[in-house]
């Protein structure tokens, strides 16, 4: 619903007959609406330029060659074993982080909604902490723990999963919490329990399918965050895509820029998918109410 314009809210002049005032209001409304549309397009264009120009510049730089355009840098992405390994590790980390986050947060958030609604704010606060703590402080705190992590799990970069699960908590918890808030969780869980479902079945057959959109959102956000993460991996001396891109930048800037662009586009596609899922969820909600 569009808000009424100030003109529409202003009282008409005492001498003007009500009909005339109404006609004037109707005549003004389309003009205001057209103006808003123009502004919308101008803003969209400005943002498009702001975001696309650097991306186009990256594309231009990564395809620059001695005798014209070349895709050598892009081809090198799949030929460089270090890069392929870094891409693989980052993708594995993204998947492991998303899975770890879901395994941790879905039962906890469900339990908090059902049994401990009073601690909901506290849990939310704890989950938001990684957002407020600078990465360098986080590393200082996490480094001694990682001495033990590497002792037990080896020195694989995949151990970054533990710290990445913490890193994605603020975004993922909010998405899952919203999803749980959008359904009548208590009644659904009690209905399932009365029909003989144990807690695992309640989670797997009732909760998860009904907050699927929220879980996809949380997972996409986690994946996007992990694919772009550099600071923690670098300071903890692990190798991931961003660390490798950084090293590569010192050796072959064209390949480095090509990989950066590819990962940006990948994250962008993920976010588009996220917005599509969110819109579909919203529209299905309307249908349910109707």
């Amino acid at each position, binding site marked *: 619903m569009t808000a009424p314009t100030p003109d529409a809210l202003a009282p008409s002049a005492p001498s003007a007959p009500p009909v005339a005032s109404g006609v004037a209001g109707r005549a003004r409304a389309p003009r205001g609406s057209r103006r808003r549309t123009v502004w919308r397009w101008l803003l969209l264009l400005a943002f498009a330029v702001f975001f696309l120009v650097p991306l186009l510049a990256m594309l231009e730089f990564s395809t620059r060659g001695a005798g014209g355009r070349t895709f050598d840098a892009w081809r090198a992405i799949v030929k460089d074993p270090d890069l392929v390994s870094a891409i693989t590790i980052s993708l594995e980390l993204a998947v492991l982080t998303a899975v770890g986050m879901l395994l941790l947060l879905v039962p906890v958030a469900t339990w908090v909604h059902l049994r401990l609604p009073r601690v909901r704010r506290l849990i939310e606060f704890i989950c938001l902490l990684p957002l407020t703590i600078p990465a360098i402080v986080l590393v200082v705190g996490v480094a001694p723990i990682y001495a033990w992590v590497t002792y037990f799990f080896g020195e694989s970069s995949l151990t970054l999963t533990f710290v990445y699960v913490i890193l994605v908590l603020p975004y993922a918890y909010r998405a899952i919490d919203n999803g749980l808030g959008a359904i009548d969780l208590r009644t659904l869980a009690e209905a399932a329990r009365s*029909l*003989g479902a144990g807690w695992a079945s309640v989670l797997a057959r009732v909760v998860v399918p009904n907050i699927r959109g929220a879980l996809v959102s949380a997972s996409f956000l986690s994946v996007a965050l992990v694919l772009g993460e550099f600071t923690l991996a670098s300071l903890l001396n692990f190798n991931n895509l961003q660390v490798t891109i950084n090293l590569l930048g010192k050796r072959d800037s064209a390949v480095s820029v090509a990989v950066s662009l590819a990962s940006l586009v990948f994250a962008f596609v993920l976010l588009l998918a996220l917005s599509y899922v969110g819109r579909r969820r919203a529209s299905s909600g309307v249908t349910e109410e109707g």
Partner: protein
Amino acid sequence: MGYLELRDLEKSFGGVLALDGLNLDLAAGELVSLLGPSGCGKTTALRIVAGFETPDRGRVVVDGKDMTRVPANRRDMGMVFQAYSLFPNMTALGNIQFGLRMREVGATDRRRRADELLELVGLSPHAAKYPHQLSGGQQQRVALARALAIRPKILLLDEPLSALDAKVRVSLRDEIRRIQGELGITTLFVTHDQEEALALSDRVGVMSEGRIEQLDTPARVYREPATPFVAQFVGVTNALHGLADGDGVLIDGHRLPARGAAGHPRGSAIRLIVRPEEIGLSPVENGGPVSPGALTGTIVTQSFLGAFMRLTVRLGGDDGQLLRVDVPSLEAERHSPGSKVAVDLAARPPIVVAA
């Protein structure tokens, strides 16, 4: 000993007593309603039976077995909730099969049982629909079928009709009674709607402040309320003030017969409970004679309620007590606001309760 026994149930929430020593027995196949205002503890009692709450004290016994600490998913109780509780990700058929799936019933048997129940609730053509494609009444029918699919020991109904519009409510109410009668399933029904409770139940338990004030057949609860609370909560009631006088009562200087008056000391203040439809009215023509024992009054207002007219009558003078009287609409033409009437309370002597 009943099939379902609730023994001395007590439950508090943060210092607020929700159940205060509740006792209730249900015979096998019986439908008992717990009726009461919001906060009287009826839903808490139902949730304790279902296993969603644990009592602070007392026991829940089903068929001789103590179920007080048995988890909800192992109690074999079907429940229909006040809120629409169908799983949105499943069709009507999927919802009905859910409990059977949890019991690892084979696909063929599951399908056959679900089809039987869809037919029982008259929703076979809607088997493939999702909850958001069904109306409120249809959703509650599916919820009922889902609860019955597991052949529960007890059926628990937590105000399942309250979210429905009036017409659907009445039709589903009749359907619940029919199905319950056909299956002979022991049922505990919780409601704040007295019409629902009176129409559906074998017995009604009227609850107040965590206790059952009266547990009896609907007719007796209505006609012979055991306490002032029951009298005032169930049905429309007049409460007249008077004085005990042996086996009768004195109101405005008139002595009237009354049930239960003998138990009160002579001269003590009492309240007289009388239903509007149990009062006789006749016009007093030009100050003409009034039958002995009848009170006189003046009609103050009248409201047309379809089959009957509700009249407000002021007894005696200007500061007299007000009385609501229901008369058939066709007879009401004899009365109009301002006219004098003789009020006859003797046809069915009123009940005396302590003031």
